[in-house]
């Protein structure tokens, strides 16, 4: 999840990790403080967590260099240019400034990527102040003029879900559209009712921040990956880990999937739900047999943390991406790499997903661009711009309203941007929902959910214009402001049923 360069070494990259260090509790969202907060706080998260982190960071750099050596030695003979580059970076991997210098060296090797990068690096290093871009969007949605002729996404804030005590790294709507799961740096996963926003369950068990979650296709299982290097499978119905007939230390609860040598960063279920793909900071992609909970295949995928992973709709392909700038397409059944996609500028890729028909791959780059790749032809078909993404692994997705596809993405200024797939035009911009960064957006039909650095999950709903009743911007504005206030005040989410248990 970490995009940026310098964040990768000093403080392990993640969004949540970064925010840990900046005393998360000082800037609390207004409605948050719920009774169970104390509970959470009483868990020995912070102290040991910090220690663990620094150890991990050290270990990580070793791991990285180790695995890179293995990797590049395997492919060096053919890769020429790449291996040269990575061997250079390898020699520096011990130093704290490793990835930064690496990045620079890489950009140096490409003649075209010139000056702008240094400017970006500078901005990255000082981006701690979360309100730096706030003023840019002082005018809310009112400024947009809706085009009446075709279906335009018109998502209005509806609910604010409070409960997480640290930044929320990912939010995913279940495939059947009825639940929302959110993963947070506080080590828990929460399940919410997508319609009412009521809190349904808190999944406790991870020993460190959770960076990714995935829903099984039947919406009954949630997989979560965390910085404790474990992947857990949860039963959505019971809110407990999945049970197996096999006996383990925790009764017949399924043991977490272990095998990755470093933080788990991304997860995806195959469309049949029988395979789970995971990407980790150890630069490998693992394919797990979900039923048996065993490692099926490990792919020496990248030379940097694997930042995103997805299955194509028929399950035969897996796509993975990394901050090394590569997007790789794998054959699920043979484990072979079928295609590698690299943009000329080689920007880090932080999230990747297949289009609904599986013919294209959408890649989220750290140069403020989202690119739509034709992976068969191997070229970029579209570039979407208008959001801000230079530092964090933010996410988005494809969405479909009335058979019209569009692309949604989070933005580092706390907003959400929606684009038309074909003409790359920004269809809707929802500015400044989250204080700080908005990390993730997921859309399921009329429902949209976003996760932010401000510990909250927000839910939006597509408001249809009925016939031609709403004609001008005024009516729109009124409706909008009503929805807005409704969104802010709605939701005294109940928190009573939150229990903290050690699994």
């Amino acid at each position, binding site marked *: 999840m970490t995009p940026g360069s310098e964040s990768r070494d000093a403080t392990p990259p993640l969004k949540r990790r970064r925010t840990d260090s900046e005393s998360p509790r000082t800037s609390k969202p207004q409605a948050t403080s719920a009774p169970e907060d104390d509970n959470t706080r009483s868990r020995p998260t912070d102290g040991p967590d910090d220690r663990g982190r620094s150890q991990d960071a050290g270990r990580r750099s070793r791991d990285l260099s180790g695995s890179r050596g293995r990797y590049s030695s395997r492919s060096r003979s053919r890769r020429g240019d790449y291996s040269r580059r990575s061997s250079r970076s390898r020699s520096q991997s011990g130093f704290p400034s490793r990835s930064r210098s690496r990045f620079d060296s890489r950009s140096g090797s490409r003649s075209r990527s010139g000056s702008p990068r240094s400017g970006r690096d500078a901005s990255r290093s000082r981006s701690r102040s979360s309100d730096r871009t706030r003023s840019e969007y002082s005018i809310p949605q009112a400024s947009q003029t809706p085009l009446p002729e075709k279906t335009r996404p018109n998502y209005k804030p509806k609910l604010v879900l409070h409960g997480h005590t640290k930044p929320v790294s990912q939010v995913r709507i279940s495939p059947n559209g009825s639940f929302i799961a959110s993963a947070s740096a506080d080590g828990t996963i929460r399940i919410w009712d997508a319609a009412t926003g009521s809190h349904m369950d808190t999944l406790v068990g991870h020993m460190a921040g959770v960076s990714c979650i995935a829903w099984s296709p039947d919406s009954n299982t949630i997989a979560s990956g965390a910085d404790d290097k474990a992947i857990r499978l949860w039963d959505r119905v019971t809110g407990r880990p999945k049970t197996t*007939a096999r006996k383990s230390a925790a009764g017949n609860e*399924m043991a977490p999937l272990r095998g990755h040598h470093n933080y788990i960063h991304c997860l995806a279920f195959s469309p049949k739900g029988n395979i789970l793909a995971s990407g980790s900071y150890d630069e490998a992609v693992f394919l797990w047999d979900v039923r048996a909970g065993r490692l099926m295949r490990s792919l020496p995928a990248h030379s940097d943390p694997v930042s995103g992973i997805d299955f194509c709709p028929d399950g035969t392909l897996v796509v993975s991406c990394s901050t090394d700038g590569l997007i790789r397409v794998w054959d699920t059944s043979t484990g072979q790499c079928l295609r590698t996609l690299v943009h000329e500028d080689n920007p880090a890729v932080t999230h990747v997903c297949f289009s609904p028909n599986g013919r294209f791959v959408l890649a989220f780059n750290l140069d403020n661009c989202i690119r739509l790749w034709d992976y*068969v032809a191997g070229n970029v078909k579209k570039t979407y711009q208008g959001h801000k993404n230079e530092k964090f692994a933010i996410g988005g997705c494809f969405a479909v309203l009335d058979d019209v596809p569009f692309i949604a993405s989070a933005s580092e200024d706390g907003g959400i941007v929606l684009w038309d797939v074909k003409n790359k035009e920004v269809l809707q911009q929802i500015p400044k929902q989250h204080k700080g960064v908005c990390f993730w957006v997921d859309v399921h039909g009329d429902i949209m959910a976003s996760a932010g650095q401000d510990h909250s999950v927000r839910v939006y709903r597509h408001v249809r214009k009925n016939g031609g009743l709403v004609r001008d911007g005024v009516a729109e504005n009124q409706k909008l402001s009503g929805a807005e206030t409704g969104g802010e005040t709605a939701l005294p989410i109940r928190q009573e049923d939150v229990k903290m248990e050690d699994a």
Partner: protein
Amino acid sequence: MNMLLSDDYLLQDYPENITNTIRSGHATMLRFDRKGDYLASGRVDGTVVVWDLETMGVARKLRGHNKGITFLSWSRCGRYLLSTCQGWKAILWDLQDGSRLREVRFRAPAYIAEIHPWNQFVTALFEEQPMLVDVSEPVDIKHILPSAPKRTNTNGDAALKEKQAKEDARQMTTSAIWTTTGDHILAGTNKGKLNIIDARTCEIIYTEKICSGVITTMRLTASGRDLLVNSQDRIIRTFRLPNLSVEDLDLDTLQVPLEHKFQDVVNKLSWNHVTFSATGEYVAASTYNNHELYVWERNHGSLVCMLKDPKEEQGVIEWHPSRALLAACGLETGRIYIWSVVSPQKWSALAPDFAEVEENVEYIEREDEFDIYAQEEIHRRRLDAEDEDVDVLTLDQPKAMGWENSFRMPVLFNLGESDSEDEFIAVSTGTMRRRSPGEGQGDDDGYERVPVKKVASKGGRSKKK
């Protein structure tokens, strides 16, 4: 979708070496489902194990029989599985929840029970009359099917009639399958006769003596136009089956012409089991008292290869419905061997700016290749170039549309390891691991390497014998 990227279609379309060995108990019967996602295996102890071919792991275990499984049959939709055992009964399973949908008892052990696309199945019983069992109603309706050949001379003299009656009494059906349309049943007898039975009237409409021994196995291709018959006279025969479902089926001119005879004239081998390849282009057979699998090509009727790897005789073999993948179960150990093709890694796929070239190519740089432009200029030009229309919703093959509304087997977490025997699981191509009890994670100990033999060319392989 991987077809868009891989060159696998260029590979040979018959398997050449063992890529996986899977085991759960002692398997005796195998069957792929129609889409080829799952492999059902029947065990000696009566358990039916459904394997997921993607993970090569157990997807479901069905317990209900207490004698060895003799036959398995998938429904068209892939949701129901019919298993037949030596214990005089057949069970129709619902794979949605693993429940027994129907249980049918017979008066004898059953060899074969095959599901019709609609709620019926046909069975061949040991030393008994074959049956058509209709399970569409709550109470099973069993129709006895005739085994005696159809006689044309119904007005012959008494002596001949008596003789025929005696002969008829000795006729027993040993194999019975549905035609693809489900209108007719093809039955093979112990006297080497092929009977075509009309499924509605349960009457034999056509009889022909097609071989001299007992017919042990009959298979059809997916198209239903080719029939493969294995008999105890050590010859495998393929026949062209006429379309039996036409309106004006003329029984008098009906013929089932012989196409090929496959046999090993040198070793006089007999064959345990036979199967068609996915397209019907190849015929594979496992050999009796021998370790090899033979694969013939049907166009010319020539032997293309002999697959020999496991050190045991193999019984039932099954060809995957779409891929070049063959499953065979070992008679002694009950292991399931998966034969397949290993596609080589394309190295240029790893680095897109590299291409594999046969010989040296002189590089001629473009005129503007090293010109320096402002970053913004390049960026703007790129964006301007993106004027192609993209369609992210429409699927390329409308055929594949069915994948989300068809039956999907639920993923179970509670399969457990209640088997007393070790289960071997393939970790990757040619690599296996013995699963220790209680072990949940991928640990590296216990790996067992199976050397994957590099097979030279087809010619060399088949010439060896």
